[in-house]
């Protein structure tokens, strides 16, 4: 039954006791620092090395080549992403609200240019590669599509291994991608992708998007239990504790409609926005704000106070 809110009594109307606020603070600070020092010494912290494009290209040249081809024929995840990278898709919607589309393409990525043509153009190439790039640049879109489509089919049939692809009409595509693979394996591709933004770089969007378009980053995440279907948002590598407080957030991704909807991310954020609003406005929500009275944890907390009141009433 809801009650009208009424004034609470003055905190000191039930008596007081002397109390050293600063001493309590100092004791708590010392205790927390000591606990931190001990925990850090006992357990340390995780540091799984970053996956480099060089390592990816060296250990899995098939996946690298398949990904580079997908960037070239605009079939990669990045190429078809939509805002904020391009207009290939509409972006997710929250109900009728197309917020992503409204926010716009603020970080444009042309995958053909960014991931293939510019890195190839950034280093001196031998005459065959120069000719291949020239052939690509002078061909039209239909020709591009024909080459990449044919090569994609052939690469698929070769199990992703470019060395096993049967001869065919692929134009300059195999040579361009093979040279890109060389650059990647030599370790220069990350630097080339980063320097597309100039001398100073602190934005890792291009190398990260390229890596994420491949399979190896996700495969390692799967091994470490970090993927979405593994409740990965809550987890940390190895046996380190993760973020259990993210359980309410990652939970939604495990159930329909969030799991299956194309707008799953937006739906989860919308739901969490509601949950957050409920938590913020608990004091004003009838029913919810009465739960503390119904679940008598408070009787434990203030048991001394109630005992004193009872004695005073009886005595």
């Amino acid at each position, binding site marked *: 039954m809801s009650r009208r809110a009424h004034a609470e009594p003055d905190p000191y109307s039930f008596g007081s006791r002397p109390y050293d606020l600063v001493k309590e603070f100092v004791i708590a600070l010392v205790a927390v620092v000591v606990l931190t020092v001990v925990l850090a010494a006992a357990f*340390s912290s*995780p540091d799984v090395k970053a996956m480099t494009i060089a390592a990816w290209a060296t250990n899995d040249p098939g996946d690298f080549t398949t990904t580079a081809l997908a960037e070239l024929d605009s079939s990669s995840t990045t190429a078809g992403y939509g805002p904020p990278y391009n207009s290939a898709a509409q972006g997710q919607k929250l109900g009728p609200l197309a917020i992503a589309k409204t926010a716009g393409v603020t970080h444009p990525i042309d995958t053909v240019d960014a991931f293939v043509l510019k890195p190839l153009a950034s280093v001196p190439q031998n005459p065959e590669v120069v000719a291949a790039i020239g052939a690509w640049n002078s061909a039209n879109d239909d020709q591009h599509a024909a080459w990449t489509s044919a090569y994609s089919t052939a690469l698929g049939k070769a199990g992703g291994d470019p060395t096993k692809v049967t001869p065919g009409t692929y134009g300059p595509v195999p040579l361009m991608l093979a040279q890109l693979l060389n650059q990647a394996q030599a370790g220069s591709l990350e630097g080339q992708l980063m320097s597309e933004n100039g001398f100073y770089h602190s934005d890792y969007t291009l190398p990260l998007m390229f890596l994420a378009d491949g399979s190896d980053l996700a495969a390692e995440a799967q091994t470490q*239990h970090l993927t979405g279907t593994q409740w990965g948002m*809550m987890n940390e590598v190895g046996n380190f*504790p993760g973020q259990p407080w993210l359980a309410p957030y990652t939970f939604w991704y*495990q159930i329909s409609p969030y799991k299956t909807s194309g707008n799953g991310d937006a739906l989860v954020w919308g739901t969490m926005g509601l949950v957050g609003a409920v938590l913020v406005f608990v004091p004003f929500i009838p029913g919810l704000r009465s739960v503390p009275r119904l679940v008598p944890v408070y009787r434990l907390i203030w048991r*001394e106070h109630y005992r*004193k009141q009872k004695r005073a009433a009886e005595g």
Partner: protein
Amino acid sequence: MTATPATPHLVFAPPVNLSGHGHYLHWGFVQISAANIVMIALIGAVFLAALFLPFPKPKGRDGK
């Protein structure tokens, strides 16, 4: 074959090595790491301890 990063790169080995393969518990569609269960259990234990542990009374006064 995946491009697996090196195992965690530590200069010294901590007494308790948490860098090994993670242990996970499965319950229906719920998956939770052993480490997280320990954290949640600790939060619960600390909460219950705070509720039930007797609090020192003020010396020589009944606090009224």
